[in-house]
């Protein structure tokens, strides 16, 4: 089972996206972006469980909430970028 991380440029953007997921009934956690995923330093991400990824993607798109990148975290802790 994987966790997926949508990264955002600011906490404002992340919280806006979290609201969109909440409205769509998709649980997520707003967390600091892990160091390995940072683009230019600090940022925030939404962590979503694998089985909810399709609904999460649709809800963000419907809300016009643009994330920077999407990553998958494997059980061994490695990261893989998921193409849009």
């Amino acid at each position, binding site marked *: 089972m994987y966790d997926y991380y949508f990264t955002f*440029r*600011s*906490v*404002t*953007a992340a*919280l*806006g996206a979290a609201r969109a997921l909440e409205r769509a009934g998709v649980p997520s956690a707003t967390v600091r972006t892990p160091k390995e995923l*940072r683009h230019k330093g*600090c940022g*925030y991400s939404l962590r979503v469980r694998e089985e909810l990824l399709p609904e999460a993607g649709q809800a963000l798109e419907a809300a016009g909430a643009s994330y920077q990148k999407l990553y998958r975290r494997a059980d061994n802790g490695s990261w893989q970028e998921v193409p849009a």
Partner: protein
Amino acid sequence: MIYFDSAATTFQKPLTVQNAVLRAMRTCASVGRGGHAAAMAAAETVYQCRLMAAELFDAEPEQVVFTMNATHALNTAIFSVLSPGARVVISGFEHNAVTRPLHALRAQIGVAGKKLFDAEDTLRDFARAIERKPDAVICTHVSNVFGYVLPVERIAALCREKNIPFILDASQSAGTLPLSLRQTGARFIAMPGHKGLYGPQGTGVLLCADGGKPLLFGGTGSNSEDQAMPDFLPDRLEAGTHNVCGLAGLTEGMRFVRKQTPSSILRHEQALLAQVKQEFRGQENLRLFAGEGQAGVLSFCVDNVDCEEAAQALAQEGVAVRAGLHCAPLAHTSAGTADTGTVRVSFSAFNTPYEVRRFAQLCKKLFPM
């Protein structure tokens, strides 16, 4: 105390505002500075305020920038749009929060619309001035001295036609008159949080159509490895720690306004203003500055009494009003009161007809004909 100085700041705040400030002080740390519970509580608190402002003023949450006050917001807007020596058109009723930054920029200032309570004259004057293609137009929505409501929607439309950046000073209108960032097409709309929005002092809002130049540089909790300020809103214009407790209060202030509705608050204030006019009828030593469509602000002069002395006499009787030039010497020049100043009364949702009656009785006692 009878508090009639809400054009400076609304002194009486809803209890929900006070409770929210206290709650934030107990639960919130800094926005964007961590992932722990207190940092995230702060982030949620500030985001809630952003969301509320965006809904109230028809903007996107990321277009809502928090400032210390309206002056800070106006300075950010003015320094974003204008370069030194730029040509700008302003109304004859602008506050020093507009004129002082323009003087600091050595801007070439054209003044349009100097006649009180004459919207058509104001509009004609602006139309003529805009034909000369200034670098920007800045206009107050409501005169902080006289309550004159300027025709800003139509001035904004003229600016849109000519593609001239328009900055709206909504210091006296936010919370009582309709305001839409989207519909006006304004580049910026500046407002305080502590007046008609019933938030705490030290809060202000700048609505930004698209970007802006920072006045302050520093930490934003984003793009930390980059020494340039972020190129996205709101972070670009929000360096340093937010006034989280103040913004928690501002959220509740805006919730109060939304519940009461801006139009009903305006009607209430206008009814009190009409009552003042009625109470002062026949009091020929009092000169009222009143006109059509006036917002809840009224200036007056007392024959042969210095305005500061008149205000002081009222203060000693427990009535809070403001006298002098109200940080708006240009407005007094336009109205012909630059030498004398005026006494100003300004209302909020918390004032009552009883207070107006008591105020009128005191005026008649203190300033007999």
